[in-house]
């Protein structure tokens, strides 16, 4: 035990260099070897499906936009994804792992790109799962008088897919804010403030901006299958415009994070 013999392992080649592939593999193993993110994701899916079932069971208005209603449980789910995105980065700082991570992958933009890709992919898969499961559970729970919307309807399918895609976008917004703020509790506060509290308050004050609030985009743009059923006091964005706005928020946060991450001391 006290001697360190020459290892049996020898590197296969020195020709290439550490890059995105290695960084992505490292980030994948980081996610796989922790239980807490998966527990959070599982609880989120269960919660969203549970809410959708409750909405389905209690539906009264047969003319309502049922798809949009059963997908309404996404708001708390989005919060969980946003916080998870924050933690992907801030955990590195709170544990001190960031130093080991950057010693292993010194190219910071490459590292952040890998984190974004790996977390984004997981969040997209789980987000779509949550959205489809919520839709199926919610519509299955509808009272007999209802004609359940079908995924065969392109508008319905679009709504379910887009709501599923909102999860990773809010998650990446959290990742970007986590990279900027670096401190978990503070960054979580910013995410809740920006996405949930601040944006809603802004919407209440100035109706024209209300449509741009992330939660409003999900509930009034992405999930809507019947035009004119949204009853907010503002003109909702078209679905694709709404999705584009969410992507823009995430991109701006991650890009700002990347600039700071590359520049700052670890």
């Amino acid at each position, binding site marked *: 035990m006290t001697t*360190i013999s020459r290892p049996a*392992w020898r590197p296969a080649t*020195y020709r290439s260099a550490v890059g995105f592939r290695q960084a992505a593999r490292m980030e994948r193993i980081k996610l796989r070897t922790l239980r807490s993110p998966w527990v959070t994701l599982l609880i989120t899916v269960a919660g969203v499906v549970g809410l959708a079932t409750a909405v389905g069971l209690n539906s009264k208005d047969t003319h309502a936009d049922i798809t949009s209603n059963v997908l309404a449980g996404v708001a708390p789910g989005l919060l969980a994804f946003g916080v998870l995105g924050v933690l992907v980065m801030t955990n590195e700082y709170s544990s001190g792992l960031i130093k080991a991570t950057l*010693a292993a992958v010194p190219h910071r933009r490459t590292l952040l790109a890998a984190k974004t890709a790996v977390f984004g992919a997981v969040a997209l898969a789980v987000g779509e799962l949550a959205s489809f499961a919520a839709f199926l559970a919610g519509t299955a729970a509808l009272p007999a008088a209802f004609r359940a919307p079908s995924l065969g309807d392109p508008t319905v399918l679009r709504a379910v897919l887009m709501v599923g895609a909102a999860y990773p976008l809010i998650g990446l917004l959290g990742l970007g804010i986590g990279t900027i703020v670096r401190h978990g509790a503070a960054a979580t506060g910013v995410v809740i403030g920006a996405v949930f509290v601040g944006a809603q308050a802004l919407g209440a004050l100035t109706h024209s901006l209300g449509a741009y609030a992330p939660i409003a985009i999900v509930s009034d743009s992405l999930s809507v299958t019947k035009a004119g059923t949204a009853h907010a006091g503002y003109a909702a964005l078209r679905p694709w415009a709404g999705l584009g706005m969410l992507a823009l928020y995430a991109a701006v946060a991650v890009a700002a994070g990347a600039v700071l991450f590359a520049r700052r001391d670890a």
Partner: protein
Amino acid sequence: MIEASGLSKRYGPVRAVNDLSFTVEPGSVTGFLGPNGSGKSTTMRMILGLDRPDAGRATIGGRAYHDLAWPLREVGAQLEARAFHPARSARSHLRVLAAAGNIPDSRVDEVLGAVGLSDGAHRRAGKFSLGMSQRLGIASALLGDPGVLILDEPVNGLDPQGVRWIRTLLRSLAAEGRTVLVSSHLISEIALVADHLIVIGAGRLLADTTVTDLCARSGSLEEAFLTLTSGGVA
């Protein structure tokens, strides 16, 4: 070989490192000595590209850290006793790092064995004692079988048995021709491990010498160190 030339770093009004130049040669253990807050960790962070120097540069084998093709295979570093996620097992932590160097899991098990952590490999690293955490940090430094090792206060928290273990380990790594830089704020501790000494105080180089020379200077190492670090900065 590690080279620092004119390294300077300022945090607000504090000059953490001030025009620091030195060379760490392969084949021996070099102690990096200085009181608390003298700039040892900052210097090590700059060598590893974690902090950007305000002036000067640090190279490893002639190249800046971020220009190394496979950093983990060229430099093994331990900067903090607990630079891991507390919920991850020791083995998972090493597998995470190994992925960044295309290093197989067999090597992970090999270094766990080398530092005596085979039995604790699957326990949550957050539950580790300071001594075990240090061993995990050393395992992560050894992971890529690097020619250069940079360890910040690795003896901290080790019991006498552990101190002896790390002394033997570092000596044998140096004997294999590796470059080994080990920091400490305790001269008694570092004298047991190092052959060569780089002494800094208030971010400046105070002495670049051998343990034997420093000892000859004022009879005892303790004395020599205190003389150096108290009045050293002119």
